[in-house]
């Protein structure tokens, strides 16, 4: 690990100012991903701004019936929160599907959104990686790419976003509240928060230097059955090969207002409005489920080892929709 200085500011304003004014500075919250990367010198901050004692750890009802989740709410607390369990089951399930009990006790809401890809070449500083070292090339394209993206990648990067929580939040139309270094507030819909890699895979999200997430807000709970299904190499404590967050209402055997988000397959939680449109008003059944999967996979392509994700996504979505429409 490279040496760094450390401070623990008392206010959010001080924290953003510190990161904005000190070159090489980074926020640290749970630290479960950042310290992992610092040990490998994938991340080499020269100054850490510890935000853990800022008052951003509350979950509160909003006036419109939604929920405001503080940036520092731990993943375990959020998963166990009574309102999340009752009204946003897809989020509770997604959180519980991620990491381990120990990690969830540390990992925060904002940190989960900002965690980095688990692409093995991003982690290996001896290998070219456009995300870690812009312009050096992508080792995954043409390399081992079993865990990589089938949607949204580019010729420069096919890394996936590893979060489960963010996939559920994407289906729930979450919004990300931030403060800028000048103290002003900016709210970004999660739908617009992440950047596709294109030719600049090192630019991953809408945050500018020093800008800090303070909360994530959820709109009032949507009607319908909520499901999170994660497919992985072992039953627990592994990243998704494919995951599906689904919120589906079924009325008289026909689906209504379906929301689908996918994890493990793209550089960001993936959502395809056309796939949801296919389901709207359609009778619940394999033909509609398959058509939705085909729409979701529009433009999808494998790079060799990850080709299996294309049929796996289709089968997982079909199974999820069958369950969602059967239980209503």
């Amino acid at each position, binding site marked *: *690990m490279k*040496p*760094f*200085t*450390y401070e*623990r500011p008392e206010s959010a304003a001080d924290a953003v100012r510190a990161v904005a004014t000190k070159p090489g500075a980074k926020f*640290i919250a749970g*630290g*479960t991903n950042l*310290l*992992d990367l610092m*040990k490998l010198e994938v991340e080499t901050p020269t100054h*850490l701004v*510890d935000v*853990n004692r800022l008052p951003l750890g509350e979950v509160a009802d909003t006036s419109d019936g939604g929920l405001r989740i503080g940036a520092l709410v731990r993943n*375990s607390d959020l*998963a*166990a929160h009574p309102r999340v*369990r*009752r009204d946003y*089951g897809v989020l*509770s*399930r997604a959180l*519980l*599907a991620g*990491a*381990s*009990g*120990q*990690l969830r*006790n*540390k990992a925060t809401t904002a940190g989960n959104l900002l965690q980095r890809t688990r692409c093995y070449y991003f982690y290996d500083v001896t290998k070219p990686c456009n995300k870690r070292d812009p312009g050096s090339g992508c080792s995954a394209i043409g390399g081992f790419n079993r865990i990589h993206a089938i949607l949204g990648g580019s010729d420069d990067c096919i890394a996936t976003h590893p979060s489960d929580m963010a996939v559920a939040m994407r289906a729930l139309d979450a919004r990300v509240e931030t403060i800028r270094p000048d103290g002003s507030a900016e709210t970004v819909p999660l739908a617009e928060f992440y950047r596709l890699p294109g030719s600049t895979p090192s630019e991953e999200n809408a945050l500018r230097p020093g800008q800090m997430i303070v909360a994530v807000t959820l709109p009032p709970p949507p009607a319908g059955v909520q499901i999170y299904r994660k497919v992985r190499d072992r*039953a*627990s*404590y592994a990243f998704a090969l494919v995951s599906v967050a689904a919120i589906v209402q079924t009325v008289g055997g026909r689906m209504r207002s379906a929301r689908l988000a996918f994890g493990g397959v793209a550089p960001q939680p993936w959502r395809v409005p056309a796939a949801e449109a296919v389901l709207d008003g359609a009778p619940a059944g394999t033909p509609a489920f398959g058509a939705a999967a085909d729409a979701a996979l529009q433009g999808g392509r494998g790079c060799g080892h990850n080709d299996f994700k294309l049929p796996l996504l289709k089968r997982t979505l079909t199974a999820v929709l069958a369950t969602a429409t059967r239980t209503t």
Partner: protein
Amino acid sequence: MTSDDRPLFPLTRRQALEAGAALAILGRAGPAMARDVPVAGTAPPESGAPAMTVRLTVNGVAEDLTLDTRTTLLDALREHIGLTGSKKGCDHGQCGACTVLLNGRRINSCLTLAVMHDGDSITTIEGLAKGDALHPMQAAFIHRDGFQCGYCTPGQICSAVGMLAEQAAGWPSLVTENLTTRPGLTDVEIRERMSGNICRCSAYPNIVAAIRDASRETL
């Protein structure tokens, strides 16, 4: 057989293994505690590297330390305080051998910095027993033979203690059928909740049995 032929320490292999296992359960490295022995990392911080003071309360004892900012909580416990019960397995949060209780909650001590925990209370495997009375989880691991080599055991036990508190607080897990009702503690629940602790000897059946036993005693 004359008395000269007797082994100096007439232990069977089984007894020796049990003695070793007891050390794992208690978190003791052996007669010489690390505090008495110079170990890497106890020296003052590397010249020029930023250092800070921090106060940790470890197993009820206040410890004032001056540390290189890079020192993880695990290294502070092992190399600076001399509590070597918490183990360094992968050092990347993948194995759970370093699990300790931070203000009562289980965490991976390898993935957090000591300087981030000024004023916090940490319980390690060394702090679970009350004098000679083992914590029920320690006793259950011995009774059920919930280990082979013992390296993951301190982390398994600390994790299990934290896990039972989570379950008692009504936290669901991924395998909890109904999110809005109080979860029970089936073997499937124990396995899911303990998935952050890896045992390379694969003592899982006995670990699950030990936790099941201890849950009946402590809940």
